[in-house]
């Protein structure tokens, strides 16, 4: 008995050692970039792994202003925020119609939306680009919101339909008897009862669009309208030779996400997983 106990302790220790190594592989690159972003360009080559001699903040200021990361962050916020609100509203409206209202075409309609989950955005990029150029939507944030919104809808509709379908009938019945209209039922009963679903879908939408690069790169060429990934990708490129500034730019781009993640990590991880399980 004692022997098997020591054996299981050894296995436990080995598991922890292994997991710690994995954690180091995950954190070391991020910590290294964070550290060198405070160094001067020369220091990166002479003492890459030492702590920085002084906290040299010019890198960050340069990346923020000359790299146009400040305006890019603002643009990203506008685009993602607008997309988030609209996709939650439009998506749950459609989900309510499919999951709760009674009409013949609800099933086929759902299938139509679900096809959208399989379609990679690459395949619609060229028609969108040429069309938007014709009607003056290229180089505008609205032109970016439209495809973001559309590609966020399938997951939103799928998850919200699940929530609305599982809602007890009695609630809606009693609201009916109280004389509520269908719109009242949607806004005052259905939506508040599906807060978890709204949180999950909102989170998925925001994270996906915040990090989206390809469409933003194709549809927007004006420097003042670029989103964060595009500006970052342009600033940190083969033509720049000041490494510490580029490292600072990377840190600026990821630090807000990391801070939010540190505060709400459990909710975020569980929320996104719940979304992926259902999607």
């Amino acid at each position, binding site marked *: 008995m004692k022997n098997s106990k020591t054996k299981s302790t050894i296995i*436990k220790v080995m*598991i922890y050692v292994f*997991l710690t190594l*994995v*954690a180091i*592989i*995950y954190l070391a*690159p*991020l910590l*290294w*970039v964070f550290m060198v972003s405070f160094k001067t360009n020369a220091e*990166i*080559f002479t003492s890459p792994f030492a702590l920085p001699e002084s906290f040299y903040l010019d890198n960050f200021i340069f990346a923020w202003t000359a790299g146009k990361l400040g305006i890019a962050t603002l643009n990203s916020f506008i685009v993602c925020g607008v997309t988030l609100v609209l996709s939650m509203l*439009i*998506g749950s*409206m*459609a989900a*309510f*119609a*499919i999951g*709760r*209202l009674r*009409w013949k075409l609800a099933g086929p*309609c759902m299938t*139509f939306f679900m096809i959208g989950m*399989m*379609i*990679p955005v*690459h*395949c*619609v990029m*060229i*028609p969108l*680009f*040429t*069309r938007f150029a014709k009607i003056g939507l290229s180089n505008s944030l609205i032109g970016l919101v439209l495809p973001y919104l559309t*590609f966020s*809808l399938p997951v939103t509709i799928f998850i919200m339909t699940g929530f609305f379908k599982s809602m007890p009938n009695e609630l*809606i*019945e009693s609201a009916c008897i109280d004389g509520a*209209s269908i719109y009242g*039922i*949607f806004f005052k009963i259905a939506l508040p009862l599906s807060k978890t679903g709204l949180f999950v879908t909102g989170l998925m939408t925001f994270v996906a669009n915040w*990090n989206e*690069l*390809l469409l933003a790169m194709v549809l927007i060429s004006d420097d003042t309208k670029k989103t964060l990934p595009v500006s*970052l*990708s342009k600033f*940190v490129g083969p033509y720049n030779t000041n*490494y510490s500034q*580029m490292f600072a730019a*990377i840190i600026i781009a*990821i630090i807000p996400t*990391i801070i939010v993640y540190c505060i709400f990590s*459990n909710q975020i*991880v569980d929320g996104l*997983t*719940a979304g*992926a*399980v259902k999607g």
Partner: protein
Amino acid sequence: MDKLLRDKKAIIIFITPALLLFTVVLFIPICQSVYYSFCEYKGLTAPKFIGLTNYRNMLKDKSLVYALKNSLFFLIFSCLTQLVIGLLLAGLLTNIEKGRNLFKNIIYLPCVLSSTALGLLWMFIFSPKLGVNQLLAKFGMEGPKWLMDTSGFIILPMWVIAFVALWQYVGQSMMLYMAQISGISKSLYEASYIDGCSKVKSFIHITLPLIRPMVATAMSLNAIGSLKFFDLIFNMTEGGPNHRTEVLATHLYTQGFKFNKYGYASAIGVILIVLCLAVTAFINKVVKTENYEM
């Protein structure tokens, strides 16, 4: 109440915005894209129908052959490694009590970070004079040119990029498997321990069969993700050196938006859609054979 739920006007108001967006921004462009793939279209003049020429040109396009090879390598590599490592991590994490959330959150972190920023970050870490090579130099070793080397059937940069992609996205698979494992009833395990099963054996005979549906889900997510794969490659190598790390998505971008060959790029897009649908169907057919009661 029935009358209220059958209200035609309400149904139309609720469903129209989504349906309209979907049709205009997704459905019509896909049809256009398929049509463009049979056309010569360079942006300035109207598309001209040329039949299958774009598809025939693909056979002569050497970069496309690289792109297709790399995309398939990527697909197979990420499906297999994410399955094995994701399951391993999920299995280990469900077996420990202390620090489970901490490790879980650390491994999941890169999934929510911008793949543009992470791609650039790893590009520096694997660049000739920084990061890994500086570390190797400390031990007196000279590292290879991680992202420039072009020897071998699958070249070194592809392995590096595949590793980074695994690093970034394995948390997603791990979480999916963990969610499924925690749903398995404890009594099954207790019964197996009484029968004298070891933990490893019960993992193989109880956990694995029961999470099979989730394996199908996670694998199709991985497969579609790896076919769509763009951000990391674009930021780490831009398809270079000499188009050797090109994948379908980067090739589509270069052909379409650097050389303005809209017709040809659309044809690549069509190939991409077909691959996505085929691979998802294949995985669901092969992996998701039986469903056990839990």
